[in-house]
């Protein structure tokens, strides 16, 4: 039973290798059913994770751990990857095989980071997830792939230097050992500088304001699935790394909370304002994602268990919407005209897109609303009313932006192809995409309704990080 909990990782890695191998060796075999098959494999992996992931154990001499935090994050990553693959319109992607394999690699990266017990494991998981985004972005735009590699390199360097300094200061690379060392030590400048470097690295990877100027333009030029990975799964991986790192530093909250407050406030308000300023659906979604990620950071900044649990709860909702939002948008990403009147001609696609945007904006009663309000409750409990007020301001701006897109989707009538300015109308959905979009819509709409098991697991996850 102990090793059954590793079966999801094995399934994911094996399937990714198989798919890439098939793409090289027998590219025409099984193309029609490949996405179906991979989605089903991910569903099985998701089921196994929920069924067998409850064990508490370690693997490979304690390098990886299976605890409630790992269970939560792994299940979330598998679920996100499954829905993303199922909702992808493969005619809009550059390569079926790489397109199917890269979300698997990204999910595996999140799983490694979630199970890591030391700084090296965290870094490796994050790099793995980020590499998948570089591959998929480079398939369409090699220049953007290179740029992402460069941005990732800077982020990685910041993170590694920070990790090295922390290792040097505490004499340990293990996260729980760092936690224990800090329990008996006052925060010093020697620890504050590497903490800032790590926060910078994680923020750059996650695209948090003001570091969004790195990855955000890259996601805008990528294919729909590529954008989903950049804005969604890779960001989730970075957030998981951030949560684990800062959970280890909670005995000395002064090391990271002031900087985290600033980053959270900038992201929440700046993301909402920027979303309001742009009109195209994909950039608007990207900025809404930045704003919601600010809420995740705000929960971490409370440095309490309830805040971390709320952040995890929101992170899963964020991951689904931010990954699948660009995916359900599909080829209709060439400005506002591409989605004008989409509600009348493609009702399911429009509904899924509307739900993604509303959830990222934190509109009630969708997944993002429940996540943001649970973070708001944690902020209130810890007395951070200024950050709470800024977050609510950002939420109002985000809501106004989201309603702007809804207006274009539903209120404006469809326009003729000649007036679309070359933007193609989103094609009708295939059967798998229909199923994927339906599952996505149900998850976003039902997340809060069935929120207790998820929030309960997130709370146990935060407890597993050693938080009180």
């Amino acid at each position: 039973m102990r090793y059954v909990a590793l079966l999801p990782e094995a399934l994911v890695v094996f399937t990714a290798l198989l798919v890439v191998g098939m793409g090289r060796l027998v590219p025409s075999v099984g193309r029609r059913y490949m996405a179906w098959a991979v989605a089903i494999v991910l569903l099985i992996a998701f089921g196994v994770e929920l069924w067998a992931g409850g064990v508490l154990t370690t693997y490979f001499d304690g390098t990886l751990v299976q605890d409630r935090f790992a269970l939560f994050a792994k299940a979330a990553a598998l679920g996100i990857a499954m829905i993303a693959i199922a909702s992808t319109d493969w005619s809009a992607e550059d390569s079926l095989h790489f397109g199917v394999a890269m979300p698997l690699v990204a999910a595996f990266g999140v799983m490694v980071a979630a199970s890591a017990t030391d700084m090296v494991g965290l870094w490796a998981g994050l790099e793995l997830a980020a590499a998948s985004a570089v591959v998929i972005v480079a398939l369409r735009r090699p220049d953007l792939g290179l740029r992402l590699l460069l941005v990732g390199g800077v982020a990685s360097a910041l993170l590694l230097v920070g990790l090295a300094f922390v290792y040097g200061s505490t004499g340990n690379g293990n996260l729980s050992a760092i936690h224990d060392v800090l329990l008996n030590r006052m925060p010093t400048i020697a620890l504050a500088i590497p903490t800032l470097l790590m926060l910078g690295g994680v923020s750059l990877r996650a695209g948090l304001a003001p570091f969004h100027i790195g990855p955000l333009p890259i996601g805008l030029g990528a294919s729909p699935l590529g954008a989903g990975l950049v804005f969604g799964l890779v960001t989730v991986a970075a957030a998981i790394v951030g949560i684990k790192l800062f959970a280890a530093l909670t005995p000395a909250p002064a090391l990271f909370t002031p900087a985290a407050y600033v980053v959270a406030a900038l992201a929440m308000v700046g993301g909402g304002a920027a979303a309001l300023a742009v009109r195209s659906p994909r950039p608007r979604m990207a900025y809404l994602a930045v704003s919601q990620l600010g809420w995740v950071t705000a929960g971490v900044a409370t440095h309490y268990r309830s805040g971390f649990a709320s952040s995890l709860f929101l992170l899963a909702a964020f991951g689904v919407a931010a990954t699948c939002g660009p995916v359900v948008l599909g080829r209709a990403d060439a400005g506002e005209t591409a989605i004008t009147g989409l509600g009348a001609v493609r009702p399911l696609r429009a509904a899924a897109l509307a739900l993604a945007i509303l959830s990222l904006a934190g509109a009630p009663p969708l997944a993002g609303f429940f996540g943001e309000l649970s973070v708001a409750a944690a902020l209130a409990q810890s007395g951070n009313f200024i950050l709470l007020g800024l977050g609510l301001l950002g939420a109002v701006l985000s809501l106004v932006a989201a309603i702007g897109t809804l207006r274009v989707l539903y209120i404006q009538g469809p326009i003729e192809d000649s007036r679309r300015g070359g933007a193609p109308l989103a094609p009708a959905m295939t059967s798998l995409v229909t199923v994927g979009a339906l599952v996505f819509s149900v998850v976003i709409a039902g997340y809060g309704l069935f929120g207790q098991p998820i929030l309960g697991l997130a709370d146990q996850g935060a407890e597993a990080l050693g938080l009180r």
Partner: protein
Amino acid sequence: MMPIVFFAQASPTPAPAPGAGLFTSPFLLSLLIWVPVAVAFGLAFIPNPRGRYDTLIKQIAFFTLLPLFGLLLIAYNQFENFLPTMQYEEKINWLPSIGVTYHLGVDGPGMAMLVLSGLAGVVAALASWGIRERVRSYFALLLLAQAAVTGAIVARDMFVLVLFWGASTIPLALLVVGWGGPRRVAAAWRLVGYWGLGTAALAVGVLILYAAAGGTSFDMDNLLKSGSGLSTRVALGASVVIIVAAATRLPLFPLHGWARDVLAESPPGVVVVVASAASRLGAFLLLRVLIGGEPGAAQLLSPLLALLAALTVGYGALAALRTVDIRHAGAYLALVPGGITVLGIAAVSPLGIAGSVLSLFTGGLAAPLIACVCATVAERAQTRSIPVLGGLGPRMPNVAWLFVIAALALLGVPIMATFATEIMTFFGAFRTQPIGAFAVAAGLAVTAVALASLLARTMFSAPNSNAPGVSDAAPGEVWYLGIMAGALLWVGLFPGGPKIPGTEVPLFDPGLISQISAGVSDLAAPFVAPTAPGTPAQ
């Protein structure tokens, strides 16, 4: 005079309606919320090529809201007004990790709001019969808005309240932007901006109370009970942001910026929903949280509330007097009932509070009635310009009658339900807030002048030969306006419900004043003046 005597008692004990309490349902309130949501989703996915099923969609929406309103009337009839506790209560643990329960329930004020909301839903569906474009989306959004407003009324958990309060903004904004007049885009953004600000303020207020109560539960039973133990500073902070939230909804000056454009640009069905229950939620929130939960802060802030009430009534009346656009005039006049409601709350006395509770219902009908009558005049006369209109009375007699009834309702003349409201409110307020009450009364006098001027210029002056052609209201318009006017007359004539002749036994309607008493005495209890032993309570 019956209502005044009735509420002047510190602990009114209304005669229970025979047979009350026979009907109970553990799912009644959930049905009222979720059936419209389910039907809205059903409508959204009905194939409707080239509007082929437009009429069917309208019928589905109407015949969803009508039986629900019938069910609500049974619940109203069966409401046990001698019990101060919540009724038709539903309580399920939802997110226990952060203390959220799916807790619904109604007391007397809640029942008044619920009946108003149900009636507004039916009237809004009737008023929307003329919608021709994107009928499926329109009625789906209307049902969603209706469900959200109902949810906010019956919520007994602050998290659930914030959820429904915020959720009502989105469908209403889309209705305004999709089916409104020439300035619809600006109107919708203003609505989203102000109501979004209000939602944020409500969330802050709720979270302050939540944190102060230990951060374990969002349940009103817990938060509003513990509120009395808050430090004055915290209680004042929470109360001020709650007042901001309420002021954006009701609306109150100076946070009324959305009202003119939204009420003047929206189609009549949307005006009914917005100006009735959706906006009365603001005053309902003040009653629930400020009066019910923070009586100390309410006492301290009552002069501020009286000031806001006076400014709102005065501004609405003066702006209506100056404007040359009849729909703007209707929108400004629709601000007046909200000011009177808040004056009752500012009175912080049992009589004033009872008046404000009754005013939730009466103001929630008078405001949409005046705004919709003005919309009908503009529609039927093909112009919104008051100088162009003239002598319409003989040419549109139905509208003229309804206009006069709306004006009388707004002014609170006897036989209209607003009479009881205003007399209770002013009697309650002149004792505790004499300056505020005098200012509101002066504003009401200016309102009378504005209404008289409006009626004289549009209905009873010489006809303008250069004006476009005029027609009387269509039967559908007469129906929906008539239902609102009829409800105001009914409650005005039978505030305690019609009785079997020669007895005190009520017929089918136990009377709105009797039914709202459940809960009002609880709300007003902290404000009852202490009486010397042996003297009757005042």
